[in-house]
């Protein structure tokens, strides 16, 4: 489950995780629970639907063993509800329920039922062996916690009947670290770091789901060779005064950002003692499959460093 507040890049990290896992030979099913199409451009091959389809292989992937397949699908609450109703002999009424806006009323009447049905569908995919690894792009905004809380909340509120069974099965999945982990995504900025720490404690204490490494997305500096030159390092005498001033302003801005990033990474480490994986900020604004391949490479390098023998390696990207 890839979880993060809006704007931190959970879809990008979801896609990168899928590519990284496939590159080491694990078949992957990517599940989008919002159906906004945010994964289409990142993975290529969309738009995706309820039935999983193959994602085309990455072009220009690094040499090495043939990557495993990646498939992707969209599981929204409405579709999960339709399938759920059909499976319970309510096929005929399913369409009427949804057309009449009753999905909305059931959703309101039984808060969290949509989330629970989506999680139930994911559990069913896991149970059916749909892939070696299922990577879920969890809802963004503040919704991720209530999404994962749905099973526990409904399990408490509804003690009998089909929903109670569904809630219990999902709760088992979330509570088993061998089956399910949350990958928190954040940015090395003040508010995202604070929120990631808050969400982490809520997920561990209230949802009881295990946390994997935390992913810090869009970092300017990961390793020493990423560092920018010091402000005012211009040596080229040929530049005019306007350009020299622009260079000073730009390098000062860049340096300021990197300093704040380093400060926030230290803060994150203090607030949240989890292993972490740092991803480079990509140069473009609209990211595509090539960016995802590069980020998957960052993930693989990061994972190797986490597994590596030297404590220094695990601290790469820390304070200069």
């Amino acid at each position, binding site marked *: 489950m890839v979880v993060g507040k809006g*704007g931190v890049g959970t879809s990008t990290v979801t896609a990168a995780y899928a590519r990284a896992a496939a590159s080491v030979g694990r078949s992957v099913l990517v599940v989008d629970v919002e159906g906004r199409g945010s994964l289409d*451009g990142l993975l290529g091959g969309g738009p995706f639907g309820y039935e999983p389809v193959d994602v085309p292989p990455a072009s220009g992937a690094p040499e090495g063993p043939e990557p495993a397949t990646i498939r992707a699908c969209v599981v929204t609450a409405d579709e999960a509800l339709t399938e759920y109703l059909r499976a319970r002999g309510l096929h005929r009424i399913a369409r009427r*329920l949804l057309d009449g806006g009753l999905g909305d009323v059931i959703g309101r*009447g039984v808060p969290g*039922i949509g989330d629970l049905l989506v999680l139930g569908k994911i559990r069913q995919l896991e149970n059916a062996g749909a892939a070696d690894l299922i990577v879920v792009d969890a809802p963004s905004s503040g919704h991720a916690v209530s999404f994962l809380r749905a099973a526990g909340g409904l399990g408490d509120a*509804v003690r009998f009947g089909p*929903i109670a069974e569904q809630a219990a099965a999902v709760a088992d999945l979330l509570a088993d670290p061998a089956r399910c982990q949350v990958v928190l995504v954040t940015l090395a*900025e003040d508010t995202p770091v604070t929120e990631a720490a808050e969400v982490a404690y809520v997920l561990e204490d209230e949802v009881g789901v295990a946390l994997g490494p935390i992913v810090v997305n869009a970092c300017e500096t990961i390793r020493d060779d990423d560092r920018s030159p010091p402000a005012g390092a211009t040596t080229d005498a040929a530049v005019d005064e306007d350009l020299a001033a*622009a260079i000073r302003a730009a390098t000062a801005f860049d340096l300021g950002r990197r300093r704040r990033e380093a400060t926030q990474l230290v803060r994150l480490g203090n607030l949240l003692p989890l292993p972490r994986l740092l991803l480079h900020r990509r140069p473009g604004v609209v990211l595509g499959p090539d960016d995802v391949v590069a980020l998957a490479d960052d993930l693989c390098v990061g994972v190797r460093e986490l597994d590596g023998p030297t404590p220094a390696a695990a601290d790469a990207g820390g304070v200069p």
Partner: protein
Amino acid sequence: MTGPGPLGALLGRCDVVICVGTGGVGKTSTAAALGVAAAEAGRRVVVVTIDPARRLADAIGTGRLSNSPSPIPGPWPGTLDAVALDATAAFDDLVRRRARDAAQAERILTNRFYRAIASGIGGTQEYMAVELLAELHSSGRWDLVVVDTPPSANALDAFDAPDRLRRFLDHRVYRALTASGSGIGRVVGRTAHGVVRAAGRVAGGEVVDDAIAFFTAFDGMEDEFRRRAREVTELLRAQTTGFVLVTAPRADTVAEARRVVDALAGRRLRIDVIAANRMTPRFTGRAAGSLEGDDPGLRTLARLTARREAEEALLVGLAERAVDTPVVALPLLDRDVTDVDTLAELGRLAVAAPSIADGHAGPVA
């Protein structure tokens, strides 16, 4: 100082400004910055924030959730108050105010179905934000109410909240359950209703029992809720209510902004200004492509300029789509927006920012 840009003009002509947008774009700080800017222009302003990040909340004195505004002192000719919405408490208050008597209020407030609705699921926060806005607006204590909306995945939720509540109250299930007054015998009879039966099969009978108990307890209050929802809708549509869509220069948020612009075309609501927050500053008038060389400083300038150009390209696409809606660019500051001084700086930049369709996207830093 240059004349006001689209945001400055909007602050001048509106008595309500509502900031909408997806999470993570700096919507709360934009709303607070607009509030500070209006106070600097001499107006009496109240800012309604929702779930502000802690350090920002501390800065504007809304560290504690409370539905009554508290003043923020500052060196401005106007006044500035802030309130951080506690939607659950606000909804409880509303029920208490509108209930016939304390016993009816108590029956509703302790109902599990009600608690689930009131704890923020399914648009309650959005509805309570507009409800509080209407209350503050009609109090006459302020010239301008600036509202931050909840970090919804769908920027349109805030617009739809009053209508959704009305639709909910008008829904045939609700009507079937409450049509002929209350009374446990009738309620039991009504559970034969096909739709209710289906809901029971999906969710279990217990849930339906809770829902019926809620609707029964609610009986008689829905007219008042309906009337209020209509009033709030009218306020949202008033000429003096302005909407600012806050976005950020990222593909996903711009795509969402584009969806909002398209969706609004078919409604009687409009976005007045699109504010693109956290733009990479522009350091030079030159194009990134002309900044060639091995000099490390020049390479940094070229990289940031290329990023700015890509961000502007995203926004130009959005501006072309939103024909009559100006798009303004607010720069990423060199520090986090966690104090009033920084809010004031962001506010000044916001009111002066020109529309990017006017040929340039803000001054060179």
